[in-house]
C-alpha cells in the first residue's frame, strides 16, 4: 500500500470493447469514485501478453489494489505473485480465483451454461435438435460455457447434429451474422437447423439478425450475458428466446465491498464469491 | 579464347538474337557496334548468364560451356560492366568491390576482416592506377566514379574477358581517357576486352577488331584498321547516309530572350551565382566537367531543385514560384539525364508515357479521349520513327534509343518554347543521335530555345550557337560557337580547376 491518502486502484482488462465487460468496468469506476478512490482503467484490446506488461507497470507504481476484469488469472500468474510480494491485493471480477489473489467475484460460467443449455433443450422438447454452436474458445469464460455445452449435448439423445463455428473477434456480430447466413443457406429445409447456441450475446444477436432477415421459422437462439441489445430482442419476440443475465452489478458491488475491507486492513470474507445469474426469457425481459 | 556459335534469343515472338556468331582472341580489344536494339546488350547478358539462350553454343578455349548463372560466368573469368550500373547504393566502394565474392573473414566468428578488405582494395587501386575514394557510398559517387568502381570490381577476380557495355555513355572526355588507360593496362596483362559503344571515335582508336550487329544478326567482323566511321555506320544501318554536317546557322540578334538567369543559386549551393540567357531560336550549350553542376542547373531552372536567390526570367516574366508543372505550363521542358529513373514510367506503355505531360489535351474531367490520344501517338511514333511493336508495348521492352525518342515525343507534344536537354544523346546510336540533333535544330528554327548539357565537347560544338562553361556550379566562360575549338574549351575547364586548387591552399 502507499502512504498517500487517496487510494489508487488499477482496473485491468483485455476486453473493454465487450459490452458486458464495459458495463462492469464502468460500475467499478463509479463505486470507486463513491469511495473516494482514484481508479485507472487499462485495456489491452484482447492482448494478454500486453495485459501482463501493463499489470507489471501498475505494480511498479505501487497502486493499492488491482482488479482484473474478465481475465483468466492463470495467464498472469507470475504478475499476481509479483503483486503479492509487494503486498498489492489482486481482485478478480468476472475472472477466476487462483492462489495469490485476494478474491474473485463472478457468475459461475459452468452454472450459467447449464442454465441456458437446459432451457434451450427444454424449449425444443422431444423434437430432434439440430444445433449450431457459435463460440470463441480462446476466451476462457466462453470456453467453460462451451465445455459445459459439450457435456450436456452428449447426454441428450435428441441432439442429432452439431455445427460449431468460431466467431471472429473483433467484429463478432458481423462475423456471426455472415456465418449464420451461410449456414442457413446450406441448410434450407425447415428443421435442418432448430437451435443456435451462442457462447455470448453478440454472436446470438448476429445469428438472430440473419434468421430474421432470411425469414426462417422454427429456429431458436440463446445467448449468455444479458446485454441490453439481446434483452431487447428477446422482449420483441425474435428468434432469440433466452439469455442468462449475469449480475454484473452484483459482481462489481461484491468486489468493491471486498476492496474496502482489504484497504481497511481486514481480511476478505470469502475468496470465491458468486453473483447469482438469472435466466431472461420473454416473460421477464421487460422488467 | 571465346567463341559464340549460332546464338538465338527470343523474347515472345520477337528474336533479339538470331544466329549470332563471334570469336574473341586472347588479349584483344573486340568492339561490338550496332544500332539501338540491335541486340548487343542481350548478347552480353547471355555471355554472363543473366539470360539463357534459345539455341547455339558458347565455347571457351574450344570447350563447350554452359553459362547458367552469373556465378558461373565469373568463375570462368568473364567479368562484365553492364550498361546500367550494378551497384548497391547504400554500400561503400569497398563493399561494392567485394559483392558476390567471398569476403575475407576470421576463422572464429566469421567476422569480416574489414582491414584486409581495404588493403586488398587499395592494392588493386594502386595496381590499376585508379584514384578513387572507396570510402564513399555508391549513391554519392559520380557516374564516372561508378564506372571505375565497376571496372575495379571486374578486376578483383581473375579476369580473362572483360565486357564493357557502353562504359563511356555517362563519362566526359577526361574521364574516358582515364578509362582507356585502364583498359590498355588490362590488355597488356593479357585480358581480352569486349567493348560496346556508340562512340565511333573510341572504337576506331581503341579496338583491334570490330563486330557489327544489325537487327539481332551479325553483319560482319572486321579489322578496325580497315574501317572508318562512315563504313561502320553504313554497315550498321545497311544504307548509305549522307554525312550530316553541321550547318552553321546565324541567330537573329534582334530575337527576344526566352530565358534569363541573373545570379541564380540553388538552395544546396550546387549552383552558385549563375547568369546566362538564351534567345529564341538559339541552341546554347553548357559544358563542364562531371560534377560541375550542369544537371543541377537545369533542375533549378525546371523547378525540381530549390532555388535560393537570383532572378529567373522566362519570356520577360519574372518567375517566383517553381515546379515542373508550372514550368511545363510556361513551355519549359526537361529531358532528364537518367531516362529510366526520371524520364519514363517503366511499367506503362509507349502511348501512356508519351502523353503524360499533356494529359489535359486528351481528357475532359470525366474521361480520356482515347481515340485522339491513339491518333496523336501514332503520328508522333511515325514522325520520330520509334521502333516498337505497337503503341501498347511496355516502354521497358524498347531499346534505349527508342525510349529516348519517346521522351522527346512527350516533350514535343507540349509545344515547348524552351528545351532543357541533359545529355540527350547518351547511350543513343549514331543514327538516332543525328536525328535528335536534327530535331533540336528544327525546333530552334521554329523559334524555340534550347539549353543543352553534354559531356561530349564535340556534340556541343556541333550544334550549339553559344557555349557556357560551368565550373563548381558557376559560369566561368562564355563563347560564341565561332572558331572555338574543343581544346580551348577544355583548357578553360582545367585551368579553372587549377586556379581554384591554388586558392584552397
Amino acid at each position, binding site marked *: 500500500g502507499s502512504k498517500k491518502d487517496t487510494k489508487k486502484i488499477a482496473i485491468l482488462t483485455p476486453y*473493454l*470493447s465487450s*459490452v458486458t465487460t*464495459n*458495463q462492469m*468496468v*464502468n460500475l467499478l469506476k463509479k463505486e470507486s469514485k463513491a469511495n473516494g478512490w482514484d481508479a485507472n482503467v487499462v*485495456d489491452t*484490446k484482447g492482448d494478454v501478453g500486453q495485459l501482463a506488461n501493463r499489470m507489471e507497470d501498475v505494480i511498479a507504481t505501487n497502486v493499492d489494489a488491482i482488479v482484473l476484469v474478465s481475465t483468466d488469472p492463470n495467464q498472469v500468474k507470475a504478475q499476481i505473485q509479483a503483486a503479492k510480494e509487494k503486498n498489492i491485493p489482486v481482485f478478480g471480477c468476472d475472472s477466476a480465483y487462483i492462489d495469490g489473489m485476494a478474491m474473485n467475484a463472478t457468475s459461475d460460467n459452468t452454472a450459467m451454461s447449464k442454465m441456458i443449455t437446459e432451457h434451450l433443450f427444454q424449449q425444443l422438447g422431444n423434437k430432434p435438435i439440430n444445433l449450431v454452436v457459435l463460440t470463441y474458445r480462446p476466451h476462457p469464460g466462453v470456453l467453460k460455457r462451451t465445455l459445459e455445452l459439450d457435456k450436456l449435448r452428449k447426454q441428450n439423445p435428441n441432439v442429432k447434429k452439431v*455445427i*460449431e*463455428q*468460431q466467431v471472429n473477434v*473483433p*467484429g463478432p*456480430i*458481423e462475423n456471426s*451474422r*455472415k*456465418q449464420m*447466413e*451461410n*449456414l442457413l*443457406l*446450406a*441448410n*434450407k429445409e425447415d428443421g435442418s437447423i432448430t437451435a443456435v447456441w451462442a457462447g455470448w450475446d*453478440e454472436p446470438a*444477436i*448476429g445469428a438472430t*439478425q440473419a434468421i430474421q432477415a432470411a425469414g426462417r421459422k422454427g429456429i431458436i437462439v440463446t445467448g449468455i450475458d444479458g446485454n*441490453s*441489445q439481446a434483452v431487447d430482442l428477446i422482449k420483441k419476440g425474435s428468434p432469440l428466446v433466452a439469455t442468462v443475465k449475469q449480475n454484473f452489478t452484483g459482481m462489481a458491488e461484491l468486489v468493491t465491498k471486498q476492496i474496502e475491507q482489504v484497504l481497511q486492513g481486514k481480511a476478505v470474507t470469502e475468496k470465491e464469491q458468486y453473483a447469482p445469474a438469472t435466466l431472461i426469457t420473454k416473460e421477464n425481459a421487460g422488467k | 579464347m571465346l567463341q559464340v556459335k549460332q546464338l538465338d534469343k527470343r523474347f515472345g515472338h520477337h528474336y533479339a538474337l538470331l544466329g549470332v556468331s563471334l570469336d574473341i582472341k586472347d588479349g584483344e580489344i573486340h568492339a561490338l557496334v550496332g544500332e539501338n536494339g540491335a541486340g548487343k546488350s542481350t548478347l552480353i547478358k547471355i555471355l554472363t548468364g543473366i539470360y539463357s539462350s534459345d539455341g547455339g553454343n558458347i565455347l571457351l578455349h574450344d570447350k563447350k560451356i554452359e553459362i547458367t548463372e552469373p556465378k558461373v560466368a565469373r568463375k570462368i573469368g568473364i567479368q562484365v560492366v553492364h550498361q546500367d550500373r550494378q551497384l548497391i547504393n547504400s554500400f561503400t566502394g569497398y563493399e561494392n568491390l567485394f559483392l558476390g565474392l567471398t569476403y575475407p573473414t576470421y576463422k572464429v566468428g566469421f567476422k569480416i576482416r574489414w582491414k584486409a578488405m581495404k588493403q586488398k582494395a587499395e592494392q588493386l587501386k594502386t595496381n590499376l592506377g585508379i584514384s578513387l575514394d572507396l570510402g564513399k557510398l555508391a549513391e554519392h559517387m559520380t557516374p564516372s566514379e561508378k564506372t571505375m568502381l565497376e571496372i575495379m570490381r571486374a578486376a578483383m577476380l581473375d579476369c580473362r574477358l572483360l565486357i564493357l557495355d557502353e562504359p563511356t555513355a555517362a563519362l566526359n572526355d577526361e574521364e574516358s581517357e582515364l578509362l582507356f588507360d585502364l583498359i590498355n593496362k588490362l590488355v597488356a596483362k593479357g585480358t581480352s576486352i569486349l567493348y560496346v559503344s556508340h562512340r565511333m571515335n573510341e572504337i576506331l582508336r581503341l579496338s583491334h577488331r570490330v563486330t557489327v550487329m544489325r537487327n539481332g544478326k551479325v553483319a560482319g567482323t572486321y579489322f578496325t584498321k580497315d574501317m572508318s566511321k562512315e563504313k561502320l555506320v553504313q554497315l550498321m544501318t545497311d544504307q548509305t547516309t549522307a554525312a550530316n554536317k553541321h550547318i552553321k546557322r546565324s541567330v537573329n540578334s534582334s530575337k527576344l530572350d526566352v530565358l534569363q538567369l541573373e545570379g541564380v543559386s540553388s538552395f544546396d549551393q550546387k549552383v552558385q551565382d549563375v547568369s546566362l540567357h538564351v534567345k529564341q531560336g538559339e541552341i546554347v550549350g553548357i559544358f563542364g566537367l562531371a560534377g560541375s553542376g550542369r544537371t543541377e542547373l537545369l533542375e533549378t531552372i525546371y523547378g*525540381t531543385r530549390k532555388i535560393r536567390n537570383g532572378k529567373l526570367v522566362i519570356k520577360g516574366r519574372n518567375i517566383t514560384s517553381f515546379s*515542373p*508543372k508550372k*514550368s*511545363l*505550363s510556361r513551355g519549359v521542358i526537361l529531358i*532528364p539525364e537518367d531516362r529510366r*529513373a*526520371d*524520364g*519514363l*514510367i*517503366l*511499367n*506503362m506503355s509507349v502511348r*501512356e508515357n508519351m502523353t*503524360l*505531360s499533356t*494529359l*489535359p489535351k*486528351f*481528357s475532359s*474531367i*470525366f*474521361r*480520356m479521349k482515347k481515340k485522339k490520344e491513339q491518333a496523336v501517338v501514332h503520328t508522333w511514333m511515325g514522325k520520330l520513327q520509334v521502333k516498337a511493336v505497337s503503341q501498347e508495348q511496355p516502354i521497358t521492352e524498347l531499346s534505349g534509343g527508342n525510349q529516348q525518342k519517346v521522351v522527346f515525343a*512527350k516533350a514535343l507534344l507540349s509545344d515547348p518554347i524552351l528545351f532543357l536537354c541533359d545529355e540527350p544523346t547518351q547511350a543513343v546510336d549514331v543514327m538516332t543521335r543525328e536525328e535528335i540533333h536534327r530535331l533540336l535544330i528544327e525546333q530552334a528554327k521554329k523559334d524555340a530555345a534550347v539549353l543543352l548539357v553534354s559531356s561530349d565537347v564535340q556534340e556541343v560544338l556541333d550544334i550549339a550557337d553559344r557555349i557556357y562553361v560551368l565550373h563548381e556550379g558557376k559560369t566561368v566562360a562564355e563563347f560564341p560557337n565561332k572558331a572555338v575549338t574543343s581544346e580551348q574549351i577544355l583548357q578553360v575547364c582545367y585551368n579553372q580547376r587549377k586556379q581554384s586548387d591554388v586558392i584552397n591552399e
Partner: protein
Amino acid sequence: MNRMQTTYAVSLRKWFRVYGTLFAGILIILCFSLLSPDSFATVDNVINISRQISFLVIISLGATLVMAVGEFDLSIGAMASLGGVVAAKLAVAGQPMWLCILIPLVVSVVIGYINGWIITKFKVLSFITTLGMGTVLGGITFWLTDGATIFENIPDSFRYLGQKMWFTVPILSFIMLFLTIVFWYIMSHTAFGRKLYAIGGNESASRNAGVAVAQNKNLAFAFCALLAALAGILMASRLGSAQPTSGDGLFLPAYAAAFLGMTSFKEGVPNIWGTFVGAAIIGILANGLTMLEVPSFLQDVVTGCIVIVAVILQKIGRDAS
C-alpha cells in the same frame, strides 16, 4: 508441334496469365457448386455472397488506390470503425440519415488528406505514418464510445441502406457494384487515374512530366479513407449497431484482396477488377467452406493454402508463356 497449335497454346497461356486469378476463382466456384449444389449454387446464395463481400470490396477499392500510387494505408481498419461509430452516434442523436452519412464521410476525407499531407509534405514512409494514424483513430473511436457497442436508440432509418433490398437485390450489393464500376472507370478512363498509376510507376518521372505528385497522392489517400469510412458506415447500418473495433477485421483481408488482384488483369499493378475478384474469392471461400461445414481451423488452413496456390499458379502460367 504445328504452328497453329503453338499459337493456340500461347494464347491460352496468355489468357491464363492475365486472368489467372479469375480462373482460380471460377475453379473454386465450380468445386463448391459440385460439393454443395443445393445450397451454394443458388440465386439466394449469390445474393448472399454479394452482400457479404460488399464491405470488403468497398474498403479494398480504397486500398487499391493508395497501392496504385505506391503507398500503403494501414489506418483503413481504424477508419472504418470510426466511420461506423460516428454515423451511429449521430443517428442516436436523432440526426437525419443523410447527415449521419455525410459527416463521417467528410471527416474521413479530411483524415485521409492529412495522412497524405504528412506523407508527401515530409516525405516520410506511408507505412509508419498510417500505422500511427490508425492508432490515433482507434483511440478516438474508443473515446467516442467508451469502448462500448452503440446500439440503443438507433432509428430504423439508419438500417435502411444496410438491410433493404431493391428488386430482391440488397442495396449493399448495388452500392458495391456501382462503386467498383465508378472506380474502375476513374482508374482506367480518366486523367486522374492515369496520373495515379504514373506516380506509382515512377514518381520522379511523373513529377518531371508535370504531374502534381503530392496533390494526387493526397487525393488517393482521401479517397481511400472515404471508402473505408463508407464501408464502416454501411456495416453499422447493416448490423444496426456500431462496435468500436468492427472495422479492424477488414484490414488484412482488404490488402489480401488487393494483392490477389494485382496478379490479375493488369499484371503486377493494383487494379480495380482484380481487387474485386480478390475480395470475391476471399468471400466465396468463407461462404463455401462454412456451407460445407468445414471446421473453423480447417477453413483457415484451406483459405491460406488456396490464396498461396492461386498466386503460384498464376505465376507458373506467366512463366510458361
